[in-house]
Structure formats: structure tokens, C-alpha cells
């Protein structure tokens, strides 16, 4: 009885003590993760599936005594790789959701809506001209990740993240003349 069950049972008490933290992580990170994945090109349903799978993997990871450091970037990395494995295309995203501009503010005047639509249209063009890596960096940055975490997710040095973010923002600013 002992030989097989012992390695499985040992990490459990440790995981149980972290159960509340895992729930809090789920509440905190589910929406940003879905947002990131949808902007990567997944459909809403696909993104929800990937996020669920990522949290199941997290539970297994913790139950197996895996590292509890940098859980946020760990989750993003798992979700990111899972999305990449689905071979999604960026072409499905950043298609200028101009219809949403109308719904973004109740107080918007028609003139403001027109200006905002034009800005969105130009921004959409600028985003499509960015490289995949630049978009990924901006999306992860928009999700509140530090450069170090972005580097962990994408497997690149922190300094490269800084350079990539800088380059991408400059491109957007120049293209949109904002």
C-alpha cells in the first residue's frame, strides 16, 4: 500500500493550504487570461476552455509539489502555449471592432464617435502591422504583467521585452499620430 500512494499523498497537505490562494488566483486571473487569449485569436469559448485547462494544470502542478513562485507568469505561459498549439491566426483578431465604439460611452457626441472610430480604424491598421512578438508583449503588458513576467511567458530576456514594448508603442503612436 505504501510504495505507490505515498508520493501522491505527500504534496496534498501543502496544496490544501494553498487552496484558498488558488481560488483567489482564479478569480483574479480568469478574465485577464481570457482577454489575452481572445486578443491572440481564440474564440471566447476556446479561450474559456484554455483557461480552465490552465487552472487544472495549475492544480496538478501544485499537487505534484511544483514551484509556487511566479504563478501568474506560469499560468500565462501554459495558456499561451496552449493557444499557440491551437494554431490560431492573428488575422482573426484586430479587425477594427468599430461597432463597439458606439457602445463605449453613453455621453459620446456623434462628432466624438466619428473621431474615435477613425482613431480605432488607424490603430487597427497599425496593430496589424506589428509583429506577433510585439503584439504579444503589448497584450501581456495590458494585462498588468511586469517585463520580467512577460519574458517568462514568452521565453525571452527582460531587456528584449523592454525593447519590444518600446518599439511597438512608438510604432502605434507614430502611425496613429496620437
Amino acid at each position, binding site marked *: 500500500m505504501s510504495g505507490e500512494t505515498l508520493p501522491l499523498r505527500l504534496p496534498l497537505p501543502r496544496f490544501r493550504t494553498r487552496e484558498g490562494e488558488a481560488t483567489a488566483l482564479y478569480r483574479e486571473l480568469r478574465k485577464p487570461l*481570457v*482577454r489575452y487569449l*481572445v*486578443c491572440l485569436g481564440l*474564440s*471566447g469559448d476556446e479561450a474559456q476552455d484554455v483557461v480552465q485547462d490552465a487552472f487544472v494544470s495549475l492544480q496538478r502542478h501544485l499537487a505534484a509539489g511544483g514551484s509556487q513562485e511566479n504563478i501568474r507568469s506560469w499560468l500565462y505561459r501554459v495558456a499561451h502555449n496552449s493557444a499557440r498549439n491551437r494554431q490560431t491566426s492573428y488575422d482573426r*483578431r*484586430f479587425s477594427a*471592432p468599430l*461597432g*463597439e*465604439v458606439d*457602445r*463605449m460611452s453613453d455621453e459620446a457626441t456623434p462628432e466624438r464617435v466619428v473621431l474615435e472610430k477613425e*482613431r*480605432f480604424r488607424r*490603430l*487597427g491598421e497599425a*496593430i496589424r502591422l506589428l509583429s506577433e512578438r510585439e503584439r504579444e508583449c*503589448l*497584450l501581456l*503588458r*495590458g494585462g498588468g504583467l*511586469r*517585463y520580467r513576467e512577460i519574458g517568462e511567458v514568452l521565453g525571452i530576456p527582460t531587456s528584449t521585452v*523592454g525593447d519590444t*514594448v*518600446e518599439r511597438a*508603442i*512608438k510604432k*502605434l*503612436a507614430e502611425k*496613429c499620430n*496620437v
Partner: protein
Amino acid sequence: MCDYPGRLIAWLDKELPEDEAAFIERHLQACVECQTRLLAYEQASRTFDAYCDAEIASERRPSLPRWIPVMSASAAAAVAVAALFLLFPRGRVVWPPIDPPTAHSSRATDPREGAAHPVVALETPPSAVRVEQVDRRNAAAPLPRRSAGAARAQVQQVGALPARPAIEITIPSDAMFPPGAVPEGMSFVAQVILGADGSAERLRLQPQFVTWERRATRP
């Protein structure tokens, strides 16, 4: 030409060490060019995030087939009419007085009922929903606690059961459906068949064109 714009974005993201961040802050106070750039970077960053939010919103709001909102509106209208009668269950329905014939002012006056209860009291403004109380023949006086049999007998004495619905509620289509979902001029009439004891027995919702269209077809 200023050499610091590259560090501005890292400063914006609080990714610089303290001493370098302090240096950039001092520089920003003096350099108008960098202030302008910083504003542009901030705005580009914010717009990118707003763009992503719009992407998410459009993903959550897939375009529905045209019949889905129509069906939803029909269901909502049916629920609304049903809720109207659920709010006034059998025990609270009283026979209405003859006068006044306005739906909003009709109130029971039976002291045993305590506070007066509205017979028909719609919160919707009259312009949106028109209520016609057709059957007032049996409302000569408040007749509380009558048995169903007694009520039926009196109805037969004064002229048999009404062949038409006791209450008709005409609902303009634009109160229930999105613009363009229903042909112009179409209204809906909720017909409520009252039972002998004043309770709603049947409910029928049927479309009806407004009068001016009918007139147009006359020779």
C-alpha cells in the same frame, strides 16, 4: 533632439530603477519635447487597451439571427402580461364599480378588504399601453366574497357571459420589439378572458394592424 524617449515607456511602466526613474522625472519637468512624447505614448497605450476591450466586447456580442431578438421580445411581452395578472391574484380581484370607467382610478371600496386594491393598475404610461375595461355590466356595486356560482347566476340574469374579452390591452409594437422587427403599423392586442369570479382565465396575444391601414384598403 532629446535622447531619452526610449526610457520614457519603461518609466511609464515603472520598470526603471529608482535613480534612473528620478532622473527621467527631473528631465520631464524641463523637456517639453519629452512631455509631448510621453502624452503620445500614454494615449497610444490607452487606445490599444481600449481596442482590446472592444475586441472582447465584440466577441461576447456575436451577431444574432434576426428572429432571436424578435422571439425574445415576444417572450418578454408574454411574461410582462402574465406578471400583470400574477400581481393581482384571484383573492384580490374585486368587482369593479360602474363609475368611473377609467382603468387607473378604479379601486375597490370594500371595507373588509382593508386598504383599497386597484382593479387594473398599470404602471406603464397611457401612451405606451392603452387599457380598456370593457366589461362593467356586473360592477353595479362591490360584491366581495361571492361564490363563483352566485356570480355566474347574476351574470346570466343581466345578459349572459360576454362573447368578447373582458379586458383588452393594446400594446404598440415599438413598445415590445426593436425598430424594424415588425411591419409599421402593427400593434398587439392582449385579450384577457375573465372568469365568473373576476379572475383571468385565458390570455391571448394577437397582432393587429392599426386602423389607418385598413382604411387605405377600402374602395
